[in-house]
């Protein structure tokens, strides 16, 4: 069968303070690698206030991290469940992000030129 079709990209929007725990869990699980992108999330929760010289400003775009993990199809359920467990930890009424999965047609490891699964 053609492996290419079964590679996935798992994208998660998580809270910055969950980064470490997520990374450790992922590497403990054996996920080969990941990328972490800081972004701003429009959340219906957690619009924290900041005050400068008595002017109350609202941060309605809260800082979040986007994690991208390329994974083999078989690992996806476990990885998602794992992220879900982290995200689900009780927290001050507050958003806890999203995870979504999309298909990847091909992956190339630049260093070696390997393609497909071995490049994960």
């Amino acid at each position, binding site marked *: 069968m*053609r492996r290419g*079709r079964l590679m996935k990209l798992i994208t998660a929007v998580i809270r910055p303070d969950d980064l470490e725990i997520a990374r450790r869990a992922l590497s403990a699980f054996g996920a080969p690698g990941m990328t972490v992108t800081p972004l701003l999330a429009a959340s219906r929760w957690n619009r924290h*206030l900041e*005050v*400068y*010289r*008595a*002017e109350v*400003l609202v941060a309605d775009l809260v800082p979040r991290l986007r994690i991208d993990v390329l994974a083999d199809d078989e690992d996806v359920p476990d990885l998602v469940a794992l992220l879900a467990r982290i995200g689900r930890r009780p927290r001050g009424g507050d958003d806890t992000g999203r995870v979504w999965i999309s298909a990847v*047609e091909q992956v190339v490891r630049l260093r070696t030129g390997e393609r497909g699964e071995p490049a994960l």
Partner: protein
Amino acid sequence: MHLDYIPYPATGYSSGDAAWQLTAATLVGLMSLPGLAVLYGGLVQKKWAVNTMLMAFSAFSLVLIVWALWAFNMGFGHPWIKTTVNGSPSGFLGRPGPAMGAGQEAQADIPLLDGLMPKFNFSQSALFYFQFVFAAITPLLWLGSVIGRMSFKAWLVIVPLWTTIVYSADAFMLWGGGYWAGKGAVDYSGGYVIHLSAGTAGFVAAAVIGPRLKRDREHGAPNNLLLCATGAGILWLGWNGFNGGDPYFAGADAAAAVVNTNLATAAALLVWLVMDYALSPTKKPTLLGSINGMIVGLVTITPAAGYVNGLGAICLGVISSTIVWTAWYKLSKVWIFKKVDDTLGVVYTHGIAGLCGGLLVGLFADPNMIVYPAGTAKGSSAFSVTGLFYGNHSWHQFWMQLFAALTVIVWTAIGTFVILRVVGLFMKLRLPDAVLESGDLAVHDEEVSPPQTLVAVGAASPPAAVTPTAVEEPESTASSSASEP
């Protein structure tokens, strides 16, 4: 050998007083550059930091040129139209004239003050420079009211006019031996001439020029609190020169003024801090709030520094900080204060604070705080000021302080308004909205922290290293791209 040379010009010259005067002046200079420049540069939106700082540097320079060419003598020279107040010669403005020749090395002299204070122990150059740093910081202060939309070009034109017409007159009336000096109103080192005037001018200018972009007003977050603290710290300690230098002698009153300056400031900072703690919407103490309080303390003690005792200084700090804090939170919500876009709130921390300080001199001035001790000659008496709470409990000083304040407010407001309107006939005072959108980049082609990906123009030829020649393993990639349903 030594006797053969005297390194000083006049007898009565004191190297100690000269050293202190130059040191004090340098400290005040540091309050402007880098002090105010980086305090404001850190307080404004990131997109306006460069513009703000360049306005500060250029204004500082412009004032000096003007000061040397004609304005110093308008503030401290011979009266233009002589009048008399209480028998002694007086006036409202000095006769313009350059202050640049070798003659500046002679002993310092303020004509209308001859005999009213000890002869200066240093040269005219020292006096000139000391007064310059005061003249220079004033427009820098009210710059805080107009940043975020004022045309840079207009700024370059307005500052010299403002120094000439507005500042010189205020200075002459209170410090140059002019009308209010004669009347006995006092301003130890600029609560009126500098701060009340800056607050007034800033407010008027903000009104005339118009507000920032709605978007910028809504996104008024500062950009760097480390630099705010840097500037604020320099302001506080620099103020030792600001108030300590004003008796013109490194005498006991100079030291007392320094102590009072710090006492009032500490008190005001703590009051603001506590009020933020107790009464602010979020009930949290803030750094920028404390810096506001600090500035209020520094400003409010300025007109009083050498006239009140330590307790008085603390009282001034507490009272003014309470008043200004309240104004900042409440007054800003009402009417004209809500309408006029005074970007950094100069009218509160300088205008109102300076006014409070000046008036409180009329209450707290302690006659035992000797500015100049009595001399040996008979009939000579020490110079000090007496407020309501001392001596024969007279309101006289208070009224003098009040009237002088009104004069400064009115003169400054009218002068500023006219200057802006007139200049407005020849050039736009406000930048076009498109420019306001991008700020520093549009005005100066600079931004405060430039991206490190910027590349020099003309440095973009494709490198030899990699050229998209014949592609290797096409099949495998082909297969990969073919690998979809």
